[in-house]
């Protein structure tokens, strides 16, 4: 007579079923501190609702003179105040000039005459300033450009920086990363770079942590 299987067999299956049920129950209910972070759903494309303000020059360039206005401020004179289209009527001494007038080139002489310290590669004055309208800038093809749109002029030569600026990774910003929640302010080129000496100056860093 075949021996029956060990008497523990039905007992074992009950235990196994109970363990499996417990395992399934725990895996569905989960433990109290669920450390896994579910992947977030893809973001809806947010529509920018708030404006971006650009800090750009709003008035034509001007130079400080040696005179003072009625309110005590240093009087500034626009370029066309001395120059006409032909470049004549230059009144020497009207603006503060560089004292050490040891310029070797006409470029530097022009810069020194206006108190401008020029260090911009091989760029000369008339590459950017319009010859015909002294209160405007000029593009490479001769078209004039107002000062507020100076970024186009910079972008002519500095394309990679302009591309990064438009992409948001050059020039910084203030305000909100999420333009649907608040406005943002961007800097124009000349807000950070002096157009005559655009290289970033050396600075003294703020103090390090003390420990």
């Amino acid at each position: 007579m075949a021996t029956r299987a060990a008497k523990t067999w039905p007992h074992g299956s009950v235990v196994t079923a109970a363990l499996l049920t417990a395992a399934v129950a725990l895996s569905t209910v989960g433990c109290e501190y669920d450390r896994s972070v579910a992947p977030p759903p893809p973001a809806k494309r947010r529509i920018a609702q708030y404006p971006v303000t650009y800090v750009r020059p709003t008035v034509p360039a001007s130079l400080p003179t040696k005179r003072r206005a009625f309110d005590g401020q240093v009087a500034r004179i626009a370029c066309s105040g001395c120059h006409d289209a032909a470049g004549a009527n230059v009144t020497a001494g009207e603006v503060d000039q560089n004292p050490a007038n040891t310029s070797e080139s006409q470029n530097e002489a022009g810069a020194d005459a206006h108190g401008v310290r020029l260090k911009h590669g091989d760029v000369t004055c008339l590459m950017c300033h319009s010859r015909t309208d002294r209160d405007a800038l000029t593009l490479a093809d001769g078209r004039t450009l107002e000062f507020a749109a100076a970024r186009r002029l910079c972008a002519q030569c500095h394309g990679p920086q302009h591309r990064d600026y438009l992409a948001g990774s050059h020039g910084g910003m203030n305000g909100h990363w999420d333009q649907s929640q608040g406005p943002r302010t961007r800097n124009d080129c000349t807000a950070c770079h002096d157009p005559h000496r655009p290289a970033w100056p050396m600075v003294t860093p703020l103090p390090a942590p003390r420990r």
Partner: protein
Amino acid sequence: MPGPQIDPHRDDPGEEIDPHSVAARPDRRTFFKLAFATLGATAFARAMAPLQAWTETLDKASFVQQHYRELDKQQMATVLTRLEAETARDYGAKVSISDPKPQPGVKFGYALNLSVCNGCRRCAEACHEENNHDRASHQSWIRVFELDKGSIDFESGSTTYDHAVPQPDKFYMPVQCQQCDNPPCVDVCPVEATWKQADGVVVVDYNWCIGCRYCEAACPYHARRFNWTKPFVPAAEVNPNQSYLGGRIRPRGVVDKCHFCTHRTRVGRLPACLEACPTGARVFGNLLDPDSEIRRVLAAKRTFVLKEELGLKPSFFYFFDE
């Protein structure tokens, strides 16, 4: 004839004195026992003194406060009110502690342009002021490394430089919490006082932290710091815009770290370090938004992460312009 023997240990012949008592035997051994017992008692009292100071400011509500993740809205409001009152009492400043939640569909990413950073430390200073760090030690959650061009060798770099920057043969790399996707600090915390939230920020519940500093040891970027003392911040310099898991003034004995300015970024604003950067080296945004600036940087620039071989998947990226 000899008189009665007078016992020198007796004051009065008629008085009985226990020969084993101290008064009966004022000898050297007794003196030393008394002296060192007094010294020991004094030392014990001095050692227990901080406990007395602690119990003066300890209240039942803070002792029985539950973990952040177990508090419902009403309990959280009570906790925030209590913390604001404690800050007013301890620092003399009226503050507003909020609890901004992660926004759905947002995962933060941060990128830093190593071609542009000039090591001026304005970001570290902005973090110091925005997040109410201890003034005495001038702490910040950002450390700026000055490294030799050509490789990233932190051991030969310096965080304490004080000469004019940028030096021509060096580059500058600010390091802060990288908000890893696989954070070792979260794994080692014995009490789960730190965890990663849905928008990617690894946060710390300062009231639950026990100050064991395991997370500080586990972080390979040394991004976490410990509050050895109660932070000192003058009332006029306290930033009143605080958050429970972020920039509120930490108690003594807990670990803190950069939290991507959650009190700002979770309402759509830029973090303080980015706004302070004068060179525009920092880029921040939502990694899940394909039109964001951070996504454009990751797609177009030569980007890398620190200590990639550890497999921690940081959310902080470094890139070069060319």
